[in-house]
């Protein structure tokens, strides 16, 4: 079954002529057709375009000249990455009809590498949420248990990767939106260093925190995708011109002697005991591979969530101001004047969670409150960053749970604050701009995936990936697959 294969194995078959990109694209499209009615990962399937791109890739393999390790590989993108000529909704009514006239830099790089785009993936509206229940269109379901959420906001990307509906997908991570759904869906999800991947064409939620990254079946596949999308971009001034190493090659060599910090503050009260046990077991696996675990402290962790919920909404309130019915997307007619047009459009176009955060952010930035909220949150951010810097003077990576719990049921978390707590272990990494990965690290007795989070120094994705790869090779969690083929309950 071609959809089961890793990118590396699929590409090997293409090269040997045992399979073609067209066959792979057709297999994935068929699987989407058969199963996505249950998972609801896709908002848009670009069937014709995918088959066209796959046919072009066929010709390149026939000629013996593939463009890259991703040539002919079927992928899918979170629906906040702009795709030229393909509707890009950001999970929102306000952009339901928006067709970008340009490609995000990551899309352009994937196209140039020959990757085949299967479609666009569901998400919490404007990436605000941790369950994909805040999509304006429909919730995505967890492939391991269709009554449960896949996490969010990149829930469609995580579910698609976990359910083999794409060979790899891209998501975005502002406060955990790649790592948390990767943990919930039992797949690999990597958030690179802030500045490592161009944000040009990523519909912004919180500009100083957003970062694009891959979901994949294995750490090696995530490394391959990162290698294609990483690197400075003149269109994104916050992208950083640091050389992009060969991430695939950097996976080898093992982790003997690697110093692994275990932050005490990440094993919080209320953590699911099965998660805690699985992560502690994972740390013992790392020790068994020659790593040297040691306790470290990140004392300002507990303030991270509060700082995040000032900074991210503040930036969002600004970034979302452009959705006003004037230029593109939804416009609700009938307003007597400009203000009414704005009001009606935004009232109808934005969902509850988006409105809540726009209001939070507008308040935090308003005159007289700026210093007390935004200013203070930025100072907390500096302290959180310093915590990590000090820890990384002693250790090479940090190991922790990705989330305090596992996938919850749809509709279970109705209190926004309860929902926000999901990201308590992922947010500090965004505040500090560091790379982090979530890898499958076991299952609860009820069969739900658990994620191990590994965090590295800025621009040192290589070490994070090498540790994750070593762990993955020593375990078989990533080989387990949800059984979607069974009839629905």
């Amino acid at each position, binding site marked *: 079954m071609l959809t089961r294969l890793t990118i590396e194995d699929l590409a090997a078959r293409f090269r040997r002529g045992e399979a073609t990109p067209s066959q792979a694209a057709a297999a994935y499209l068929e699987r989407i057709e058969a199963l996505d009615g249950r998972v609801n990962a896709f908002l848009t399937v670009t069937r014709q375009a995918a088959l066209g791109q796959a046919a072009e890739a066929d010709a390149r393999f026939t000629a013996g000249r593939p463009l890259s390790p991703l040539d002919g590989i079927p992928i899918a993108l979170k629906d906040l990455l702009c795709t030229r000529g393909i509707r*890009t909704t950001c999970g929102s009514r306000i952009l339901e009809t928006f067709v970008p006239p340009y490609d995000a830099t990551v899309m352009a790089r994937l196209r140039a590498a020959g990757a085949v785009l299967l479609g666009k993936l569901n998400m919490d509206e404007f990436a605000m949420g941790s369950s994909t229940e805040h999509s304006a269109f429909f919730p995505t379901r967890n492939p391991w248990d269709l009554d449960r959420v896949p996490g969010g906001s990149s829930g469609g990307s995580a579910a698609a990767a976990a359910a083999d509906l794409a060979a790899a997908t891209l998501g975005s991570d502002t406060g955990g939106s790649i790592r948390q759904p990767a943990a919930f869906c039992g797949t690999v999800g990597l958030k690179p260093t802030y500045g490592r991947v161009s944000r040009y064409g990523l519909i912004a939620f919180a500009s*100083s925190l957003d970062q694009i990254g891959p979901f994949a079946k294995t750490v090696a596949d995530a490394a391959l995708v990162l290698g294609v999308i990483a690197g400075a971009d003149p269109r994104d*001034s916050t992208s950083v011109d640091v050389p992009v190493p060969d991430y695939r090659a950097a996976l080898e060599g093992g982790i003997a002697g690697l110093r692994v910090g275990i932050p005490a503050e990440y094993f919080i009260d209320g953590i699911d005991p099965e998660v805690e046990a699985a992560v502690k077991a994972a740390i013992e696996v790392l020790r068994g591979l020659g790593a040297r675990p040691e306790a470290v402290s990140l004392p300002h962790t507990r303030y991270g969530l509060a700082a995040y919920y000032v900074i991210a909404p503040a930036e969002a309130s600004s970034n979302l101001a*452009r959705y006003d019915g004037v230029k593109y997307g939804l416009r609700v007619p009938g307003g007597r004047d400009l203000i009414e047009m704005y009001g009606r459009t935004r009232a109808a176009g934005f969902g509850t969670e988006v409105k809540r955060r726009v209001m939070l952010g507008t308040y935090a930035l308003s005159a007289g409150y700026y210093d007390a909220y935004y200013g203070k949150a930025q100072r907390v951010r500096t302290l959180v960053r310093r915590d990590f810097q000090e820890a990384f003077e002693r250790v090479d990576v940090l190991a922790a749970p990705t989330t305090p719990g596992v996938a919850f049921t749809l509709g279970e978390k109705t209190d926004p604050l309860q929902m926000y707590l999901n990201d308590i272990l992922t947010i500090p990494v965004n505040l500090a701009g560091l790379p982090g990965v979530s890898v499958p690290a076991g299952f609860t007795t009820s069969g739900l995936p658990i994620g191990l989070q590994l965090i590295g120094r800025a621009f040192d994705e290589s070490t994070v990936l090498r540790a994750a790869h070593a762990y993955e090779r020593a375990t078989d969690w990533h080989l387990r697959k949800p059984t979607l083929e069974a009839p629905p309950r």
Partner: protein
Amino acid sequence: MNDLETVIGLEVHAQLLTRSKMFCGCSTAFGAAPNSQTCPVCQGMPGALPVINRSAVEFGIRTALAVGCRVNEHHRFARKHYYYPDMPKNFQISQYEEPLAEHGVLDIEVGGSSRTIGIQRLHLEEDVGKLIHEGPLETAQSSTVDFNRAGVPLMEIVSRPDMRSPAEAAAYLRTLRTIVVYLGVCDGNMEEGSLRCDANVSLRPAGSPELGVKVEIKNMNSFRNVQHALEYEVKRQVRALAEGEKIVQETRLWDPERVRTVSMRSKEYAHDYRYFPEPDLPPLQVEARWVEAIRATLPELPAARRRRFAGGYGLSAYDADRLTQGRALADYFETTVREYDKPKIVANWVLNELLREMPADDDRAVAACPIPPRNLAGLLRLIDDGTISGKMAKDVFETMYRTGQDAPSIVAREGLTQVADAGELRRVVDQVLAAHPKVVEDWRGGKKAALGFLVGQVMKATLGRANPALVNQLLGEKLPKG
């Protein structure tokens, strides 16, 4: 109420003459089809990101250095929020807490005395688009928006509240305009909106260190409007205070038709711009080396040049001032003087003859002038060597302007060489005297003005080619003594 002091501060916006926009590569050229010079960035498309135009920063630094500002080593952009459909993102990328430059000064002259006006800050920002309403705004059924101007670089220069009269404000604006035009960073055209000015006006008891309640005046799109609007506003405030009213902090629009300022919005409705640092643009480091490199390319500024023209060339203060209003005109003058070393004569020709023919005295008009400095010098030499008279030279000048040809070719082609042959002229003089016996009688009777008439007749008969000095001499010889 003569114990009240007027306090004025100006905020000047100058559109920068960069080829591309502030944060994207789109052209800044004026007059293209609506929205033809736009891209995802300047249309505020989802996902688009700004990139700083280095050349705009350089223009800002040039100006900052010219007005003695300190260029900040670190500066950054900030978002300024308000909703309006001409602004695609509903925030403007501007600078707030860390502007490009601060603490400058500008010397102005009003009524022969000099004053120094402080400059608080100079920062960069992006312009907005243009709304086009179908009919008047109040009744328009639809409006469209053209984003061609959206994202064009603007430089805002904020003065300290150092001006004490509308005349000083006008002088400040004029001086600043001359500088930005000299530097080549702005075309200085107020009518087309490349240079815009808002003013803050307040009154206070003379000698008081505290500032009164300020009123912001907008919509003054010419030098004349600035002075008129401020004069009106000062009078309005004086009258209001005399009648026991309180001045309220508000924004007022100048209405040039009705010659008054009209309240636009009061402070209660003032925007909360919710400034915060632009997260899409990292703070900019301005290296000292770069600043010094820019400083080295600064041209001689108008004030220095004016002093040099007056001192070095012996021109009147008035002529020196007029010649240095534009860099190109001053260059034209100096180039001509290098070829023809009589500065006062050149100044007269440039200020009287040349400016009479040219549509304007700005750099564009000078660049398009059909008479290059070399040709003007050539014309003046023809007067000096007696080939043509000064009067003939003015006709030749007009032909030069019309055709672009040089003076010697025109003189040769049209046979305009001056008649300085005494024999030939003597015959003409005799004919004139014979034809006007009555005038000759008048002259003899002591009417000295009659001589001018006779000279005129000789010039007419020679089609203006007679050498005037020789004509006078011959008439003196021929006329009967009184």
